[in-house]
C-alpha cells in the first residue's frame, strides 16, 4: 500500500479499466492522494477489490458501470460523478481490449480484430474526452491516457495493440495544444508493469519473466500501485500544472530511447 502526499484531496477522478492490474493500482494511488475515485468497470461486481484498495489507502471509492465502448455508459459514469460530487478533475483512460495480450496475425487477421482494439483505445479515447470536456474545462483538470512503450517502438507480436497505443500519443500531443487555452492538461503514461497476464506468466513460465526483468536496469517490473500510480497522480495534480502534451515512460529504465 502506498502513502502519497494528498495531492488530490477532495478531487474527483474517473479511472477506466480499473478492475485489475494497472487500473487498480492507479485507482489505489489516487485514493492514497485523497481523491474520490470513480472506478470505471464493465462489471461492477469485479470492482470490489479495487474499491477496497482505494478505501484502504484513504480515498473514497465509487464503483461505476462503464464499458467505454458504450457511449451511454461512459456518459452516465461521468454525469454520476459530477451529480454526486459536484465536479470532475481528471479522467484516466486505462481500459484496453480484452484481446490486448493476444498475439495478432497481422497478415491474416480481419478488421473485426482491429475493431476490438480501436473501439476501446481509439474511439473511447475521443469519446471520453468529448464527454468530460465541459467538466474538465470548469475544473481546469487533466486527461491522462495510459499508453504503452509498445505504442512508441512498435510490437512484432502485437501490431494492433501497439498501433492503438500510438494513437493515444498522437491524440495527446494534438489535444494538449487544442485544450491548452482552456487550461486542461493532456498527458500519457507509458508503463512497464506487472499485469494479470504477467502474474500468470510468473507461475507458468518463471524463467521468461526473469528474462524480461533482466532487461530492466532497475531489475524488476513495475508495481501498478507504487511505481505507476504516483507518476499518474502527479500528472493529474496541480504539481504538474505546466506539464502537457507529454508521454512519461515509466519502465525502470527498460526503454531509454523513446
Amino acid at each position, binding site marked *: 500500500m502506498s502513502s502519497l502526499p494528498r495531492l488530490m484531496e477532495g478531487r474527483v477522478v474517473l479511472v477506466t479499466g480499473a478492475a485489475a492490474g494497472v487500473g487498480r493500482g492507479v485507482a489505489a494511488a489516487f485514493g492514497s492522494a485523497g481523491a474520490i475515485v470513480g472506478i470505471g468497470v464493465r462489471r461492477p461486481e469485479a470492482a470490489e477489490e479495487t474499491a477496497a484498495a482505494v478505501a484502504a489507502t484513504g480515498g473514497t471509492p465509487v464503483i461505476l458501470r462503464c464499458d467505454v465502448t458504450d*457511449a451511454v455508459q461512459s456518459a452516465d459514469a461521468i454525469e454520476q460523478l459530477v451529480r454526486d460530487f459536484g465536479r470532475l478533475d481528471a479522467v484516466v483512460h486505462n481500459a484496453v481490449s480484452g484481446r490486448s495480450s493476444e498475439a495478432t496475425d*497481422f*497478415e491474416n*487477421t*480481419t*478488421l473485426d480484430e*482491429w475493431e476490438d482494439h*480501436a473501439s476501446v483505445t*481509439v*474511439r473511447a479515447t*475521443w*469519446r471520453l*474526452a*468529448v464527454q468530460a*470536456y465541459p467538466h474538465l474545462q470548469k475544473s481546469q483538470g487533466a486527461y491522462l491516457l495510459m499508453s504503452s512503450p509498445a*505504442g*512508441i*517502438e*512498435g*510490437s*512484432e507480436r*502485437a*501490431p494492433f495493440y*501497439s*498501433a*492503438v*497505443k*500510438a*494513437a*493515444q*500519443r*498522437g*491524440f*495527446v*500531443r*494534438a*489535444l*494538449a*495544444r*487544442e485544450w*491548452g487555452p482552456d487550461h486542461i492538461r493532456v498527458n500519457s503514461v507509458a508503463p512497464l508493469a506487472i499485469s494479470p497476464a504477467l502474474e500468470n506468466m510468473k507461475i507458468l513460465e518463471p524463467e521468461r519473466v526473469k528474462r524480461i526483468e533482466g532487461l530492466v536496469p532497475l531489475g524488476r517490473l513495475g508495481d501498478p500501485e507504487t511505481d505507476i500510480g504516483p507518476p499518474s497522480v502527479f500528472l493529474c495534480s496541480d504539481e504538474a500544472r505546466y506539464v502537457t*502534451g507529454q508521454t512519461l515512460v515509466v519502465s525502470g529504465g527498460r526503454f531509454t530511447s523513446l
Partner: protein
Amino acid sequence: MAPSASTLVIGSSSGIGFSIARRLRTRGDSIIELPSTLDLTNAEAVGESLRSLVGSGSVDRVVLAAIDPSAFRSAPIVSLTESEWDQAAEYPMRSAFVALQQAHGVLADGGRVILILPTVAATGVAGLVPLCTAVETIRVMAKAVARRWGARSITVNTIEVELAAFMLGDSDAGDTEVTMVPVLGQPALPPASAVDDVIGLIDMLASPAAGAITGALLVADRGTVMQP
C-alpha cells in the same frame, strides 16, 4: 534495385500520392495503381484488385500515401460527430492496415515499403486531433510490420512531409483549406519541391545501400519540425 522495378502506389488519386505516381510514370518506372473508386477498407476487394493487377508476379516497392487528403478538416474534437471522427481518424487507420496487409501478399522478398505521411503528429496540431491520431497510429503500425517482415528482408520506412505538400503534391495551394491550418513553425530551408525530395528519398530507400534501414522515420519538411 533498378529504377524500372515495379512499384505499387497506393493513394495515388490525389495529393502527394498522385504527384509521386505521375513523376515515377513519367520517368519510365513500371507503376501499378489501384482503381480510385476502390474502398481501401475492403480487404477482399483490395486483395482481388491487386491479384488481377500483379497476376502471378510480385512488386518490388510499395509506396503508400497513407491518408486521403480529402478527409482533412480542421475542427475542435468536441464539435465532431462519431461519424466525422471515424472518417477523419479511424478510416485512415483501417485503410492503412488493409493496404499493408494486402500489399504484403504481392510483395517480393527483399521488397521495400515506403509510407508517406504529413509531419503533424510529432508536435500535434490544435484542430487536427483526428489527423494527428491517425498519423501516429500508422507510423507505429509501420514499425510493427517492419519488425514482422524483416525476416523476408522487406524494409518498411516512413517519409514525412509538410502538411501542405502532402495534401497538394505538385498542385498550387491556391485558396484551399490547407492555408487555414495553424502553422507549426517556420521552415529552416527555402521553398522547394517536396515531391522531388520524396522521390529522392524513395530511390534512396529502394537502393541496395538502404537494405539495413527499416522502421525509420525520415522527415523532409525543410526543417519545420526538428525532432528532439
